[in-house]
């Protein structure tokens, strides 16, 4: 009989090594998969993980793709540390895009310098408003924020769908479901000409740095960590749990809203029925893969972004199916969880030590 036995003491080294180990195992797994698909594994892995980064276009697209993942991932990881499970970042992203994008649509012929800052603030507020609902329901009625935030995601996406099919539809667009294009004054400036890298990337880096400050230096960071690790101790210390729930949800919601605004005003340039290919959900993987640490989230955001780009590159160059991208992401998460389990537990074959000792 095989059983898991708790190791008692965690290895700090393994905590940080296990994501690396998971990446290595995923690569080995990928080699086998590509070999089974009849592709030369070396060429395939090169195409998947290196080729997207061999030119400026690829590197810039990696940054564009990672930007929303990192922005959302930082917010989520801070909340997750305090056991506040905001699963609804997708909805907060959407409402942020609606608030900020709405401003651009209303002032579509404006060339004011204040439009863009206004949109950014509106985007953040939008995300916070949407996250405030689960916060209120949790602190007032003790409703599980996992469920409420998740459900509100669908509401947000349908609300966006209503707006672009109805009142905000482009009057010159043959009734197709999309709004007008944002004016130049409502578009995030690109940082490198000829690429799509926009100011949102800078926001992401600032947020990584601020996240690190909050978690390691600020009092509230300490409180969040204590609540997560030892809720009883936190209550004993007199921490205001409700305050921490509000803080976590508003922070992660605001950042998701900022991510949404960056997407519509940085890359899309208008509101359309789908503005996010599931960034709010992928960011959950990003947060865990990054060990809920801001720098880790930055790295894991880049790794996950690379799997998307690599998947497309592999489709173009060697004709693998799109499902390979999902396969890699799933394998990565699986190996990470498996490594974590084996960091905390050891495998025992046969009876446990206690049973062998015959204490009974």
């Amino acid at each position, binding site marked *: 009989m095989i059983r898991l036995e708790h190791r008692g003491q965690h290895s700090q080294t393994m905590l940080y090594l296990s994501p690396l180990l998971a990446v290595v195992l995923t690569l080995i797994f990928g080699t086998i998969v590509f070999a089974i698909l009849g592709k030369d594994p*070396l*060429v395939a892995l*090169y*195409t998947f993980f*290196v*080729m997207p980064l*061999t*030119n400026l*276009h690829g590197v810039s*697209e990696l940054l*564009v*793709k990672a930007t929303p993942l990192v922005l959302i991932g930082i917010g989520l990881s801070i909340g997750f540390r305090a056991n506040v499970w905001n699963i609804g970042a997708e909805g907060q992203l959407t409402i942020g895009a609606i608030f900020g994008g709405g401003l651009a649509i209303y002032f579509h012929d404006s060339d004011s310098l204040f439009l863009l800052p206004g949109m950014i603030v509106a985007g953040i507020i939008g995300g916070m408003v949407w996250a405030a609902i689960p916060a209120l329901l949790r602190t007032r009625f003790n409703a599980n924020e996992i469920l409420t935030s998740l459900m509100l995601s669908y509401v947000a996406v*349908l609300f966006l*769908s*209503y707006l672009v*099919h*109805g009142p905000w539809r482009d009057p010159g667009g*043959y*009734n*197709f*479901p*999309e709004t007008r*294009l944002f004016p130049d004054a409502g578009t995030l400036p690109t940082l490198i000409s*000829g690429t*799509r890298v926009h100011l949102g990337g800078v926001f992401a880096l600032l947020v990584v740095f601020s996240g690190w400050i909050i978690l390691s230096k600020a009092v509230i960071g300490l409180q969040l960590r204590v609540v997560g690790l030892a809720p009883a101790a936190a209550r004993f210390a007199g921490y205001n749990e409700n305050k921490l729930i509000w803080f976590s949800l508003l922070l992660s919601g605001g950042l998701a809203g900022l991510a949404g605004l960056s*997407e519509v005003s940085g*890359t*899309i*340039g*208008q509101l*359309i*029925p*789908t*503005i*996010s*290919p599931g960034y709010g959900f992928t960011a959950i993987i990003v947060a865990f893969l990054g060990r809920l640490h801001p720098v880790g989230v930055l790295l894991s955001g880049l790794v996950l972004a690379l799997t*998307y*780009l690599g998947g*497309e*590159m592999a*489709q*173009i*160059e060697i*004709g693998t*199916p*799109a*499902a390979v991208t999902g396969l890699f992401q799933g394998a990565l998460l699986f190996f990470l969880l498996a490594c974590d389990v084996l960091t905390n537990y050891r495998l025992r074959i046969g009876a446990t030590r206690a049973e062998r000792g015959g204490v009974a």
Partner: protein
Amino acid sequence: MFRKITLAVVAAAFALSTSVGAIAEENKVGFIYVGPIGDHGWSYRHDVGRLAIEKALGDRVKTSFIESVKEGPDAERVIQQLASSGHNLIFTTSFGFMNPTLKVAKRFPKVKFEHATGYKRSDNLSTYSGRFYEGRYVAGVIAAKMTKSNVVGYVGSFPIPEVVRGINAFLLGARSINPKITIKVVWVSTWYDPGKEADAAKALIDQGADIITQHTDSPAPLQVAENRGVYGFGQASDNLHFAPKAQLTAIIDNWDSYYVSRARAMLDGTWKSQDVWGGFKDGMVSMAPFTNMPSDVSKLAAETQAAITSGKLHPFQGPIKDQEGKVRAEAGKVLDDGTLLGMNWYVEGVEGKLPQ
């Protein structure tokens, strides 16, 4: 030691990149699809068109495709990736790829682009689509003959003119036979989600529909029709093997000859930006064999199809009234293409309000 390994890896990477880069010299045609090529419908038919290019032009071109590309920020990156990796002709096959295609087309003036079902064009961006409504009209005629409850269930994707036009054409076809027919529509807000599509079909059957048709990309609604013992239609591709007892016919999208001719034009240097909207006459739309119906119905369907092909019959021939009873086309008049392309109203007989 470490430095040596690094050097070796870098050298290997360079060797690989130059060998891969060498392919970029040939002529390449790229495709992006909104769904998987295994959707048995829309994207599948485009991929059949891609394979037709390979078959017809052999070594002269190489084709590649990217499937399941979301309409949104990802689309522009994927199109750009095709353009920058040496593709000379790129087909983007969903409405939501319109603005991204336009943006990339501006950046790559030498690359030729073709966008399906959109309306924005430029010197190196063509548009093309099929007059699928002609097939819908024929399907409506068949439905009117086969229904007992006089209620048709319609699974819609998004309330865009393309889809609304299909609903209206279907109902006009049906009412040309039996003016009591009504259509119930359920919107699923997706092009491809077999689970959602099936649920919508079940709900429609529960509300009394005994004919199911859909403007989504999977055969799921048709499979539900088969299981529940009602009739249905295949969409984009012949789906008879999914529903041997339920499929009456299917509206088939034929992109093969268009794709081959455009790829050939690109190779010959005769490619020009244009707008093509082809129907039965051009072979871009066709019908699967008429099955599971008495011979008088299949005869009527074939006659209807022949009349549309010859131009004797136009699906949007007046008199046409909308839901409010307002006359949209006088008797003897035909709605022009501009009206058809921007259609945002239901004809009389569709139940419910069009989401606005």
